[in-house]
């Protein structure tokens, strides 16, 4: 979340990727850093260690949402 917000503040379009379990923490960080509406895309949890094939499946599933979030005004 912080990386996404820092990039956004530099004027670079950014979308934060946050896993389901860390979504509430994402809310907290976004609010505390004064950018509650920073674009975010939710990933399943856990993701790390779930295998290359699963990562490919998740990546394919989120790419359209990711691009939509990126292009959001």
């Amino acid at each position: 979340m912080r990386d996404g917000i820092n990039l956004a503040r530099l004027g670079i379009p950014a979308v934060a990727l946050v896993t389901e379990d860390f979504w509430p923490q994402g809310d907290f960080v976004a609010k505390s850093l004064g950018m509650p509406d920073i674009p975010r895309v939710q990933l399943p949890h856990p993701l790390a260690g779930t295998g290359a094939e699963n990562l490919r499946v998740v990546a394919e599933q989120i790419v359209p949402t990711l691009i939509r979030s990126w292009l959001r005004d």
Partner: protein
Amino acid sequence: MTDRLQAEDESQALELLHSKGLTDGLPVVIPTPDRVARLLLATGLDADVLLGEMGPGNGAATVEKVAVAACMAGCLPDHMPVVLAAVQAVLQPEFDLTEMQSTTHCTAPLVIVNGPARHNCGPIASGFGALGPGHRANASIGRALRLCMLNIGGARPGESDMALLGHPGKFTYCLAEDEENSPLPPMHQDLGYKPDDSVVTVIGAEAPHSVIYSGDADDPDDAFKLLQVLGIGLANMATNNAVLTGGGAVVVLNPEHAKILARADMSRGDIQLGLWQNTHYSKERLAYFAHGFAERFHGEEYRCFDRPEDILVLMAGGSGLYSMVMPSWCAGANRNRYVSQVITTDQFCEVPTV
């Protein structure tokens, strides 16, 4: 009867309790007669019912004295069945409370709660940060047991409690198992209780040691490697489990690690067996660090745990890279056995909030 102290107001009462060494060093709820009476009422038991003698001071653990400690710890009436069960658990002779309270080792009673009482007598947290701050029932129930051990058992730091440094779990050390999300059956069920029973299991344990493991579903040895690192944490050469041996220990799997083991079709028994097998070491290795302790073994290899089931395995906490292991003291007549106690709720009396 419980001795009564007099003070002009709550502030003076708090200072009096601190000055008499009756607190754990933190502020306590002043145990006024009315407050203690509410907690007593909740138990449905008479004040003078004796649960047992608590060492090392051999104080009489009456229900009233336990209620005083629970009040000081900040307990609600709903917490009382779990507090009573935790006190009864450590009073079981197999727990070796007197020895545990007196040792130089850093050991504290870890209270693990299973069954419906997790919700009915709490809620007792089992998820993110369950052993950390912010969970009232966990904090208060564990603290109530400690205040009993201080004020009924008489374990005073440096005088009768000789722990060289202690550990923060000596303030409070209580959590529930995350039964709803665990791929394993509830721990108490595997200990022989019915799923609908509510049970506390208590073991004298060191502070939690973190074990990092980043799983890899593409690795066929994923579960085996996880068991290996958990074994290293449980009984590395710096632990009593590896040097004194024969005691119990605890593994608190985080959900991610539990899933790795479930993917390998491992039951709790399989996990315990794997941990037991991974903690067989060479006598030569022990002799290098602790020659005197190694002499008692005759073969080339020795076992840190007598039996696989001496290692308690449960799931709790948030999902991520870290599980927790709690090595133990491994001494006393019963070698630091864990004990379980059914939480009795049929005597419980609901006390309205004031």
